[in-house]
């Protein structure tokens, strides 16, 4: 089979359907959203074509600036915590026998696929007064009476790290699974303790992977939408919540679109950084 450039309609035909679907149902909606962000809002929930930047100016206000910095700070905290726990965990995971590895992977994939609604419901139940973990503490004599731990910033953080953890492990998994075991063995032969070998050989060797993963998890956490509503208080609402609120409940599509465009730019910049960080290690 010679691989050459396709010629004529017959050879191009297979790609027509996917190309058409992706252009019509992704490129066009995406472009439309960018266009709407500079449209003018008409009272009553509609908008008309125009070129105004009022929507962009509006989120430069203190309120939206606050939401933005909260969203970014929260995502950063979640990313650092998730990678901090997931990296040593994944490092152990790839050394397990194949069967045990597969059981863990199925478990992690199942948690990862859970709807944010289900994670939010499960965590709010776990942290509730009637059905929560504090009942266990009372039974153990650690607490006088059960109390509600949600909504709170801690609950939100726990839920987000829970949601991000399987994602983090699965992003780290290929890099760690392909890690050359001889490097570490060499360090061990030369007298390093396992812990020392981990911190002096494995971690520095994968520094770029760690940076790239942290950025990916950051973008992932930035997208969380339901957990802030289910586990946090209104002051913990993120940009995603606000965008939806403007689009659906305030019927202000232009403003929602402007915030979304901003979120796209931040995310794309971060994904670009992550790719760059990941690539440098491959060539090194």
């Amino acid at each position, binding site marked *: 089979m010679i691989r050459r450039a396709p010629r004529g309609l017959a050879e191009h035909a297979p790609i027509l359907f996917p190309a058409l679907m992706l252009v019509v149902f992704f490129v066009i909606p995406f472009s439309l959203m960018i266009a709407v962000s500079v449209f003018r809002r008409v009272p009553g929930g509609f908008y008309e074509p125009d070129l105004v930047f009022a929507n962009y100016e509006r989120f430069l206000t203190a309120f939206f600036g606050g939401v933005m910095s909260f969203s970014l700070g929260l995502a950063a905290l979640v990313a650092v915590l998730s990678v901090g726990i997931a990296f040593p965990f994944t490092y152990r995971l790839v050394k397990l026998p194949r069967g045990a590895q597969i059981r863990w992977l199925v478990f992690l994939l199942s948690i990862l696929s859970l709807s944010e609604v289900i994670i939010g419901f499960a965590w709010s139940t776990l942290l509730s007064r009637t059905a929560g973990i504090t009942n266990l503490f009372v039974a153990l004599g650690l607490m006088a009476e059960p109390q509600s731990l949600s909504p709170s910033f801690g609950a939100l953080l726990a839920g987000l790290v829970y949601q991000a953890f*399987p994602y983090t492990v699965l992003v780290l998994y290929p890099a760690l699974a392909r890690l050359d075991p001889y490097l570490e063995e060499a360090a061990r032969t030369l007298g390093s303790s396992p812990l020392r070998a981990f911190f002096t050989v494995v971690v520095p060797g994968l520094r770029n992977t760690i940076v790239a993963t942290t950025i990916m998890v950051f973008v992932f956490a930035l997208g969380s939408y339901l957990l802030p509503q289910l586990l946090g208080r209104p002051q913990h609402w993120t940009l995603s919540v606000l965008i939806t609120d403007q689009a659906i409940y305030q019927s202000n599509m232009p403003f929602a679109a402007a915030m979304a465009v901003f979120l796209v730019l931040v995310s794309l910049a971060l994904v670009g950084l992550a790719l760059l960080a990941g690539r440098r290690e491959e060539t090194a």
Partner: protein
Amino acid sequence: MLMRTLNSLIAGLIALVLAAPILVVAGVSVNEKKSLTFPPQGFSLAWYAEVFTDPGWRGALITSLVVATLSAALAVLIAFPLAWFLWRWRAPWARAFEVLGMTPFILPPVITALGFLSFWAAVGEYGSPWTVVVSHAVFFVTLPLVTLSLGFGAVDRSYVEAAATMGADDRTVLRTVVMPLVRPYVISGFAFAFVLSLNEYIVAYMVVGFTLETLPIKIFNALRYGYTPTMAAVTVLFVTLTAVVFGLIAWFGDLPRLLGAWAKND
């Protein structure tokens, strides 16, 4: 020895934390009374029965299953020709479509959701039930695209050359040589898209949330009007279904390889 014990202890703790919310929900779902208490008081499977007998819950369940099946099938229909084309021909420009297929999955979902909302509103189809199928298919096309790229990458080109030398045309090669080799990857791509569509909230909500209730939307709406153990029962059913689907993928396919680790004999 101490290190080993410590390692298993930490792994056990992580497993416990990951399972804890689900275990509590499972406990709540068998409560006898209509309240969310844990440990459960009494034992009853009535809430599981209600998922199937209550028209609201049953409707949402059926909607979710239909949407997930159709959108996963459409996602595979979009991904398969694209992945095949990229593997069969030397056409660097076609990579642009691959990147397009990956993008919705990397960006925060609210962006894709808002894009769909503006699009369906503009073409006057906002709220039509089928729009959620198309939206989910495009949103999750990344998953079959990734598994299929791996699948085609694993096809030994010498088989294909042998078949071509014996006079098989492209179509015959695809049907008799390539298809049997990539079938597990087609199935796992479908399964990934199916499970994620089943659990997806924000795109479904922004596209058809007011006319069509999928299970995640139904659960969220129910949360606002007060908790019932039925929600816990639905949650347990969903978690089980998800775990079963991934268990099947692991059973029939090479899960570590699908997730990017090299096979042992590489």
